[in-house]
C-alpha cells in the first residue's frame, strides 16, 4: 500500500532537486514522469512550475497519493543536474532499485559546490577574460580580475546572510563600479567601462534568460514568464547599481 507513496515521493523529490538546481521545467516534468513509469505507476498527473511541483498518482485506487512541493528559485548547480540526469537514466533502464535510488538521490543532492577560493579565482578570471573580450587591454583585464574576485567574495558574504536577490545584484554591481572607478582614478589609462562590463558578467541574467526561453518554447508559458521577469528585474537591478555609483562619482566630479 505504501509503495505508491514511496515511488511518488522519490519521483517528486528528484524533481524538486532538479528544479532547485536550475533545470528547466520540461526536464523536471519529463524526469518525474519517467521515474513513475519506470516503477510501473500507470495513473498519474504531474504539473511543474518554475517554483513548484504538483503530482498525484493512482487516484482511483485505495493507495492514492498526491504531493505538492514549493521550490524557491535558487542558484544553479550544473554538476547536480548532470548527476540527477544520470540517476534518472539508470532508474528508467531498471538498473536501480527503490532503496538504491534514495541513497543515490541523497548522494546527488549533496554534491558540494566548489570551494570558496576556487570560486573567487574563477570569477576573477572570467571577469578579466570578458573585460578583454569586449575590447579592454591588459591593464583593464587585471582590474577586472580584481573587481570580479572581490565581487564573488562579497556575493558569498551576502549569501551567508540570506540577503535578497535584489540587494545582492544592486550592491554587487555598485561594488564593481566603485572598484573600477577607483582603479580609474588611480590610473587614468584604464577604460573603466570595459572593466565594469567584464566584472558585471557574473551578475548578468544569462541563465534566467536561457531557461526562460526554453520554458516558453516548450509551452510552459507561466514558468517562462516567471524566469523572464526574473531576468528583466536582475538586469534592472544591475543598471541601478551601476548607475547610482556613476552618478555619485559625477557629482564628486571625478569623471
Amino acid at each position: 500500500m505504501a509503495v505508491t507513496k514511496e515511488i511518488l515521493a522519490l519521483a517528486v523529490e528528484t524533481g524538486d532537486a532538479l528544479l532547485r538546481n536550475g533545470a528547466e521545467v520540461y526536464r523536471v516534468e519529463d524526469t518525474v514522469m519517467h521515474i513513475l513509469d519506470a516503477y510501473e505507476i500507470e495513473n498519474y498527473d504531474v504539473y511543474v512550475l518554475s517554483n513548484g511541483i504538483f503530482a498525484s498518482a493512482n487516484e482511483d485506487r485505495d493507495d492514492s497519493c498526491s504531493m505538492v512541493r514549493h521550490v524557491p528559485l535558487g542558484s544553479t548547480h550544473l554538476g547536480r543536474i548532470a548527476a540527477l540526469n544520470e540517476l534518472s537514466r539508470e532508474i528508467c533502464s531498471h538498473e536501480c532499485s527503490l532503496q538504491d535510488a534514495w541513497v543515490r538521490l541523497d548522494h546527488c543532492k549533496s554534491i558540494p559546490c566548489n570551494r570558496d577560493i576556487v570560486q573567487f579565482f574563477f570569477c576573477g578570471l572570467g571577469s578579466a577574460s570578458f573585460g578583454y573580450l569586449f575590447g579592454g587591454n591588459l591593464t583593464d583585464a587585471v582590474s577586472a580580475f580584481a573587481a570580479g574576485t572581490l565581487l564573488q567574495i562579497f556575493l558569498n558574504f551576502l549569501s551567508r546572510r540570506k540577503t535578497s536577490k535584489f540587494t545582492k545584484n544592486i550592491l554587487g554591481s555598485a561594488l564593481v563600479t566603485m572598484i573600477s572607478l577607483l582603479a580609474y582614478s588611480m590610473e587614468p589609462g584604464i577604460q573603466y567601462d570595459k572593466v565594469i562590463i567584464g566584472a558585471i558578467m557574473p551578475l548578468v541574467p544569462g541563465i534566467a534568460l536561457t531557461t526562460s526561453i526554453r520554458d516558453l518554447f516548450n509551452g510552459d508559458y507561466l514558468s517562462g514568464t516567471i524566469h523572464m521577469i526574473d531576468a528583466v528585474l536582475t538586469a534592472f537591478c544591475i543598471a541601478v547599481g551601476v548607475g547610482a555609483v556613476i552618478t555619485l562619482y559625477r557629482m564628486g566630479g571625478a569623471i
Partner: protein
Amino acid sequence: MLLQLLICMIATISFAILFTAPKSELIFCGLAGTLGWFFYLICIDQGAGKPVANLVASFALTVFSRAIASMRKNPVTVYLIAGIFPLVPGAGIYNMSFYFIMNEMELCSAAGMETIKVAGAIVLGIIFGFTLPQGWFNAIPKWKKHR
C-alpha cells in the same frame, strides 16, 4: 582572432566552474562558448549587425550543445548555460544605464533597443536550434558506435 577565441574559452570555462559544471564536461562547455563566439566574430567581420551575429552564434551554439549533450549523455543545459555567456548583452545593459545617467536619452534608447534586439536574437537563435528534431541528435552516438 585566435587569441580572442582562446580568451573566450578561458572565460566560458571559468563561468562553467562558477556554476559547478562536472569536471569532465568543462572542456566541452569551453568549446561551446568558443564556437558561439567564433560565429559571432565571423558574422561581425562580414558586416552583419549585432543582432544577426547573435542569432547565428546562438543557433550554432544550441546545435553544438545538443549534439554534445547526446554524445556525452548529459543535459543540454550544462553546455548551453556556460556557452551563452559571451553572447549575453552585459555591455548593452551597462551602456543603457550609463547613458541614462548621463542624461543622453537618444543614446540611451538606442543602446536599450539594441540590448532588446540582441536578447531577442539570442532567443530566436536558441529556439531555431531547438526546432531541429531530437532524432537527428540521438543518431549521433549510434553513428559513432557504427564506425
